[in-house]
């Protein structure tokens, strides 16, 4: 990959998702960034290092000796009040897992890019969502993005929400490996003034670690206090919904964006009979398929989940209950789960339990290891979902799509 020197003052840029996030680091005036190589996320750090070398980005840039140290270093930098950025992919993210867990308990804001990648073994570079999804229970806010522009906006949004004193939780931006990390798209850039208006400085307040504020952080609490502290973290995650809505409103106004719903995107769903639901870049083949099937008179639509944590249960309950059947596409797996379904399927199934009418549902696992989700496989998934709409239930609740027999 050639790393070009981008003039970030250009109003329109042809850049990849990784480069978009690197530029966001410069415009957000990030203080500490840690890098460690693993494909495909590491392209963001190649852009970051070039931006530093060219004087566009000023920060402490540390090439760590492992992902564990990468995340621990920025965790501690965040504790003294520094705005931080880091990231990883696949098994690298898992190597950092201990640090990922404790950052939530410490209530330290941190923004990380996950270049979604299959978990070894056997070795595979391609997209799979199991890496980022593994932290879904811990207190990480998780955002899935579709385009380079959305990746950049999501980064600004992530710092703003994570560093909000009502929240103080880490946030990961999931970008599909190769499809977004390495693919260039046109991005309408916000100006520095717009970014400054949207994103206030990080203020750690009374929790800052400094000799002028001699506090003890994370003493041993055991059964005396841990459940109360977990409950506080839960309350922060619950508050995140409103803070995200607030931030999205500001972003729409300041950046002139038109994201109506911060949590989900609906595509041609208004009069649809069946819809497919998924996350990330598979929206491209899905949207093409929706248009083609509509040309044949089939009323289909697509719903893209943008925030996975906090999970947009209220939005999905409203959006999905009106369809004759829904199909959930997982670019992940959860072996041994109910109905043998993927993670998104299981979550949506749970979210819709109390909804009346409750739409019949089918789950699909596809695109693992970065295998392309094609128009053909998307059409197959729509066909299967139509069958469910006709019979009212799925004979087989979960199908693997596009797998060689």
């Amino acid at each position, binding site marked *: 990959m050639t790393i070009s020197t981008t003039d970030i003052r250009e109003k329109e840029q042809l850049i990849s998702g990784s480069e978009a996030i690197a530029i966001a680091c410069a415009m957000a*005036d990030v*203080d*500490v960034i840690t890098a460690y190589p693993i494909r495909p996320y590491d392209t963001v750090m190649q852009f970051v290092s070039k931006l530093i070398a060219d004087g566009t980005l*000023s*920060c*402490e840039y*540390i090439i*760590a*000796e*492992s992902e*564990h*140290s990468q995340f*621990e*270093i*920025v*965790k*501690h*930098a*965040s*504790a*003294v*009040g*520094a705005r*931080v950025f880091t990231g990883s992919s696949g098994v690298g993210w898992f190597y950092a897992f*201990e*640090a990922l867990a*404790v950052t939530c308990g410490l209530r330290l804001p941190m923004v990380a890019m996950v270049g979604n990648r299959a978990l070894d073994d056997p070795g595979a570079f391609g997209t799979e969502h199991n890496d980022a999804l593994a932290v879904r229970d811990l207190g990480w806010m998780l955002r899935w993005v579709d385009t380079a522009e959305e990746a950049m906006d999501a980064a600004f949004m992530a710092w703003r929400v994570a560093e909000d004193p009502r929240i103080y939780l880490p946030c990961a931006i999931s970008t599909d490996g190769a499809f977004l990390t390495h693919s260039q798209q046109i991005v309408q850039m916000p100006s520095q003034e717009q970014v400054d208006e949207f994103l206030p*400085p990080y203020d750690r307040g009374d929790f800052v*670690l*400094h*000799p002028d*504020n*001699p*506090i*003890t*952080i*994370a*003493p*041993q*609490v055991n059964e*005396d*206090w841990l459940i109360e502290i977990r409950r506080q973290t839960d309350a922060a995650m619950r508050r995140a919904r409103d803070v995200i809505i607030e931030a999205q409103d500001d972003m729409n106004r300041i950046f002139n964006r038109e994201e109506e719903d911060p949590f989900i995107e609906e595509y041609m769903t208004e009069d649809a009979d069946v819809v497919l639901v998924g996350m990330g870049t598979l929206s491209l083949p899905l949207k093409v398929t929706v248009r083609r099937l509509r040309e044949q008179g089939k009323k289909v639509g697509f719903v893209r989940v943008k925030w996975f944590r906090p999970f947009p249960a209220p939005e999905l309950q409203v959006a999905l209950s009106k369809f004759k059947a829904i199909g959930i596409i997982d670019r992940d797996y959860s072996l041994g789960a109910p109905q043998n379904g993927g993670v998104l399927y299981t979550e949506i199934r749970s979210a819709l339990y109390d909804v009346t009418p409750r739409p019949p549902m089918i789950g699909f696992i596809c695109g693992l290891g970065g295998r392309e989700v094609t128009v053909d496989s998307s059409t197959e998934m729509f066909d299967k979902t139509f069958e469910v709409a006709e019979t009212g239930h799925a004979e087989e609740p979960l199908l693997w799509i596009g797998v060689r027999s």
Partner: protein
Amino acid sequence: MTTTNTLPLIRGVQNSPLEEYYTSGHRTCQGCESALTMKLMVKAAGPRSIVLGSTGCMYVANTTYYSTPWVVPWMHTQLGSSGSAATGTAAGLKALMTKKKIKDEPINVVSFCGDGGGMDMGLSAISASLTHPEYNHLVLCYDNESYANTDIQASGATPWGANTSFTPPGKLHRIMQKRWKKNMAAMMAVGHPGVRYVATGCASYAVDLMNKIRKALTLGGPTFIHTYDPCPKGWDFDPMYSHELGMLGVETGIWVQYEVEDGVISLNGPSRMIARGRRKRKPVYDFLKRQGRFAHFTDEDVDYYQAKIDEMWEKWWLPGIIPINPEEGLQPPPG
């Protein structure tokens, strides 16, 4: 690089600062030498310090919610993260000071780990932290020669033959701990040539230890100190003898007191006298017999132990420090 605090050397115990920054509130064992190491560490560093503590006795036994002993700001870090905690804290402060987001002033960053967290799990992060000359911090490894917080399990710092809960003597195997202790401070000094200060220390020699802390923090850049902390629980001796055990470790030549300042090595205290032939090493038996962890030793075991310590002093290139020797033709270091 941000500036460092200039901490003057302490001339004698009567001239040491009266202020304590590690006070009541901890619940370490009676006779805990590591607790004394903590106390001397922050006494020497003073109030303009941030202390990071990785998991281990000095986390769990020290820092119970609502009863912290730390007067200076303190934060927990993970078992293998003392190096990363030091780097992250120092980098965060440097970034904020450089960008004028906070006042530019010298702040001591001290990160401690036990022997398990430092010499086993955290080795790679400590090593990495010592490669960043632009960040001022001290990593202090308090070595009580086992995972003493979790029930005395053998670590990479446990001496040969010691009875730990993972290496108990049995009917078939009298010696379960067949490994020799890692040579940590020398490994840090030799492996990281840009580091301005590496030292060993022992709380039995309190003024020496405080001055080593002050030298490390004053010289700046990343620095490392390895302390030798007798542990009544793990070594199995009466808590009143902690100090004496530390001195015996040095006097028998098992533990070597030295410092490496800007690439120049010097031995300190009794170790210096031993190296110069002005003092005879005490037999290791005097040290071993005082501790329950060696109670299963036979005469042969003691002889073997003594032979290994003799080898350290008589056959190593640098006695007690560098366990490799030059081939013929290479010049050994002067005297």
